[in-house]
């Protein structure tokens, strides 16, 4: 019985913190359903008097957000597929296939983790410009092709694959690439899902690089489109909230569906450090 007040205290505190944390997201949904102008009244309303989808209609019919939603989907999906292709192969090689110079390359890559991506940004832009890739989706994708952090995430998981298993396959006459495809990849499925979720969310939410590379509304990703829209439509809070819903809901849904994998990757990265 002594525990009773403490139980109330802990759960009460959790409820309050969770309510405060979720409130901005709740208000985004509520305001996106309000008729124009309603959120700018006093006292500030928490729920639309008459819920309407007018803001969403306006966004898709006139602001071209459907196109930008498609751009974001294409970029995040391509980034995920490319990152999986490059990083999984490399991660496995660093874990299990001793090639000449492996140790040294690995040390250089660890060292590279301290260099912020922004240092490479300016010359990378010039490089894309000379290749004619500025203002293209391919240009946005370039930095997400391969990543040191992702390679180490895969390497960490691949280290747990037992050597005996690989050696048994070799004795049976399987080639190295067959072993990678048939034995290693299935065993690494959980980390592949983790990496896929990380990359997709990262590419979807990325702002600075697409902002630099893209300069044409039709090619914008959702965050860039939203930032530009918010400058033109400062007063239209309901419209902007509908834009935020369109941007945030896909990633929130993906996260909720694959939460287990996401959290595993997050703590794996931390333990490694």
């Amino acid at each position, binding site marked *: 019985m002594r525990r009773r007040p403490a139980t109330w205290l802990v759960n009460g505190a959790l409820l309050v913190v969770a309510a405060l944390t979720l409130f901005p997201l709740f208000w985004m949904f509520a305001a996106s359903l309000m008729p124009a102008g309603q959120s700018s009244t006093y006292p500030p309303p928490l729920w639309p008097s008459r819920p309407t989808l007018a803001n969403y209609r306006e966004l898709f019919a006139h602001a071209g957000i459907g196109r930008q939603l498609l751009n974001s989907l294409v970029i995040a999906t391509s980034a995920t597929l490319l990152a999986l292709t490059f990083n999984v192969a490399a991660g496995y090689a660093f874990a299990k296939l001793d*090639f000449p110079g492996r140790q040294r390359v690995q040390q250089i890559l660890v060292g*590279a983790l301290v260099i*912020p991506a*922004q240092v490479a940004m300016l010359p990378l832009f010039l490089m894309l410009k000379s290749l004619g890739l500025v203002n293209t989706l391919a240009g946005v994708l370039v*930095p997400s092709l391969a990543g040191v952090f992702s390679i180490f995430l895969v390497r960490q998981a691949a280290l747990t694959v037992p050597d005996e298993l690989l050696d048994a396959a070799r004795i049976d006459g399987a080639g190295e690439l067959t072993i*990678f495809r048939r034995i290693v990849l299935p065993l690494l499925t959980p980390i592949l899902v983790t990496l896929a979720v990380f990359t997709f969310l990262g590419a979807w939410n990325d702002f*600075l690089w697409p902002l630099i590379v893209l300069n044409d509304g039709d090619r914008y990703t959702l965050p860039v489109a939203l930032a530009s829209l918010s400058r033109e439509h400062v007063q239209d809070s309901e419209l902007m909230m509908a834009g935020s819903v369109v941007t945030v809901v896909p990633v929130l849904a993906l996260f909720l569906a694959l939460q287990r994998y996401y959290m595993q990757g997050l703590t794996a990265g931390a333990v490694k450090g």
Partner: protein
Amino acid sequence: MTRAQAGLLLAAPALVVIAVFFFLPVLAALALSLTDFDLYALADSGYLRFVGLRNYVQLLGNPLFWQALGNTLYFTVVGVPLSLAVSVGTAVLVHSRLARCRGLFRTALFAPVVTTVVAVAVIWRYLLHTRYGLINYGLGKLGFAPIDWLGDPHFAMPAIILFAVWKNFGYNMVIVLAALQNIPEDLYEAAELDGAGAGQQFLRITLPMLGPTLLFVSIMTVAGYFQLFAEPYVMTLGGPGQSTLSVLYLLYEEGFKWWNLGRASAVAFVLFLMMFAATALQMRLGRQAAA
């Protein structure tokens, strides 16, 4: 195919990509920072000249750079401890034996982390509105006068810090939560037998056992906070009166608004050096604390 050949074959594509699209540009950035690359050079590289350390010298003489540096340090020095305190506090709550529905609370508190920073910054801009924002409305109910959060140079950075803490604390919370689960339960049982209260248990057992984890998340969070950009870009445009201009914002404007790519590269390297120094300092303090 031998193992070494297969290893090379599988590692090579990623390594080539990283070499071409990361290491090469980093070296190029160093070279670029020693030139006067600007709009004219962008049109015709014949205008490009080597200027030695002039960009760095000019940067150190530019009051705007010092303003941006001060703002970034303000954001980091106030924001990171605040964010870590909230992360540890909420992790302890979720970890508590008394907590119900832990998984649900963990998900709820983590949700802002996966959201798009631009989208949620737009939400907060309206929540922080002086007249119609719900934050001032709530403060009004508690008896506070309305604050012009994003229009007053004294409050713009605190508002951005509040936003950043809300957006990010869940990330470190999950890492701290995993570390809490690794602390042996018998340590607490022994402390309880010795009559230690909850507060003492937290100070004498929980915090020391979390030491290495806290050092790790602190290093990562400081590095992340040094890269402040999207928040001021969306919420304040670096204003009012440059009070939220960050180093990365300065880099962006110098490079992609004025097309002074030489000077912008110098800013990039100064940012890199700052982050490197901050990491080294924390590792040193961490070693001292452990000794």
